[in-house]
């Protein structure tokens, strides 16, 4: 889908003539290719987040290692999309909305790649945690991960629909992830106070929850990109 174009209406006095823009086939086609590649990347990132969470809950080191390996694919995808965007900007000379769209997509792939890294970092913590029994049943972290994955999905939907209202709503939902992070922090610190044997596991859990919280922040960054795309203004949705 193209970035929304609003028809320019002529004045009532002169007769309202609806201006329908002509397609620019090559540019439109390349924009679609790039957008679809970004969405496929988003799918990979969602899976990585959920897999890292599953690996954590089950203390499954093998699954965690798969997530770590899979991050290379996400990184390569980001490089590929960036190259595509460069090529399109160089050869199609987009301006105005077309240019903002491509610049937005470039930034989105950067944020998605970093989210992939964060999921891999969670998986790395799982690899270290896996040999021992869990400190406590994991409740907040899987919820943070699931919310993070849903945010990624939601914000990419807002991007496809070029929907700034939706984007702002998504940004608000990140607050819940932040709340869960703080709750985790307090809970785990208390467990570490109670018994020094808990410190190593506790620290790794806090690190993992920090990365899950960062995933939420990055989804909010993408939401800001969508707002920029629509309005041309940079708005801070995560003060």
């Amino acid at each position, binding site marked *: 889908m193209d970035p929304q174009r609003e028809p320019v209406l002529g004045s009532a006095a002169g007769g309202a003539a609806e201006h329908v823009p002509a397609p620019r*086939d090559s540019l439109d086609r390349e924009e679609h290719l790039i957008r679809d590649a970004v969405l496929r990347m988003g799918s*990979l990132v*969602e899976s990585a987040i959920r897999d890292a969470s599953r690996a954590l809950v089950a203390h499954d080191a093998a699954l965690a290692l798969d997530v770590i390996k899979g991050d290379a694919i996400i990184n390569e995808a980001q490089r590929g999309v960036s190259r595509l965007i*460069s090529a399109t900007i160089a*050869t199609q000379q987009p301006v105005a909305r077309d240019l903002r769209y491509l610049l937005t997509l470039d930034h989105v792939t950067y944020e998605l790649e970093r989210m992939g890294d964060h999921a891999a970092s969670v998986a790395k913590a799982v690899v270290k945690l896996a040999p021992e029994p869990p400190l406590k049943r994991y409740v907040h972290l899987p919820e943070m991960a699931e919310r993070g994955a*849903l945010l990624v999905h939601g914000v990419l939907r807002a991007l496809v629909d070029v929907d700034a209202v939706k984007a702002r709503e998504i940004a608000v939902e990140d607050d819940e992830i932040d709340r869960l992070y703080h709750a985790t922090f307090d809970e785990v610190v208390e467990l570490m106070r109670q018994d020094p044997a808990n410190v190593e596991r506790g620290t790794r859990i806090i690190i993992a929850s920090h990365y899950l919280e960062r995933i939420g922040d990055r989804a909010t960054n993408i939401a800001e990109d969508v707002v920029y795309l629509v309005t041309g203004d940079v708005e801070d949705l995560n003060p």
Partner: protein
Amino acid sequence: MVEETPLNAAQAGSTLDTPVDDRSVAVPIVPSIRIATEPGSGRDGADTRGETVIELRDVSCYYGSFRAVKDVTVTAAKREVTALIGPSGCGKTTLLRTFNRMNDLVPSFRATGDILLDGQDLYGKDVDPVAVRRRVGMVFQKPNPFPKSIYDNIAFGPRINGFRGKMDDLVEHCLRKAALWDEVKDKLKQSGMALSGGQQQRLCIARTIAIEPEVILMDEPCSALDPHSTLQIEGLMAELKREYTIVIVTHNMQQAARASDVTVMMTMDTADRAGYVVEQGDTIQIFTNPTNQLTEDYVSGRFG
């Protein structure tokens, strides 16, 4: 496309349960773009390209004793758009006109080296230049429809060539291919010269197609047209290249970037004032990361 995973946590379990193997990516995440020339793969995914149609080896062009173009080795591949770009006077039009022997019309002109069309020497002793121009058509900078009806503009060439089929069908076919049919179908008897600039140029393209060439040469086909008509012609080129090989000379670099698959960068040697080829490469590569500094400077608008 993003899969329609339901947006509530309870049903999201279906994604959590998907085994790892099922998510191995069968479809490449990022579509490939041609950075290096690969036979048979197009910039926009078109296939069956890459075969060489026009080949020049060590070609020099002389007007009398003056060497206008020196030591050119280039190729144009089947069903690709090859653009010749470069500053004024670098010999790109001279070179283009060797592809259909238009330079024969200049008495002092002489070309050395190998100029091959489908592997055959275009300037061989037994080669009929008129036959060459049937296989290699040309569209010029200033649209030049015949002072005839739209219909006769298209019918003229085939009639001369002894066309025996249904002329009405041929005329419609060519006008449709040139994206002009809808605009002129009710006024085929009107003069071709009464059309707008963009329409006249499309009429010239339709006229060229009517003789069923293999190659269509275009010498700055849009420089007399407004931006909208220009983009329209470029859209037409993208369609035409499915069937025809196109070589275009343009001083509009952005057009070369938008519309071509391969770009040949030429310039003039200030010492002997002969044009030469600086670089030939994939258009995407020429405009994102050219090999030669001169090319980089030219496409960035830093010289020429």
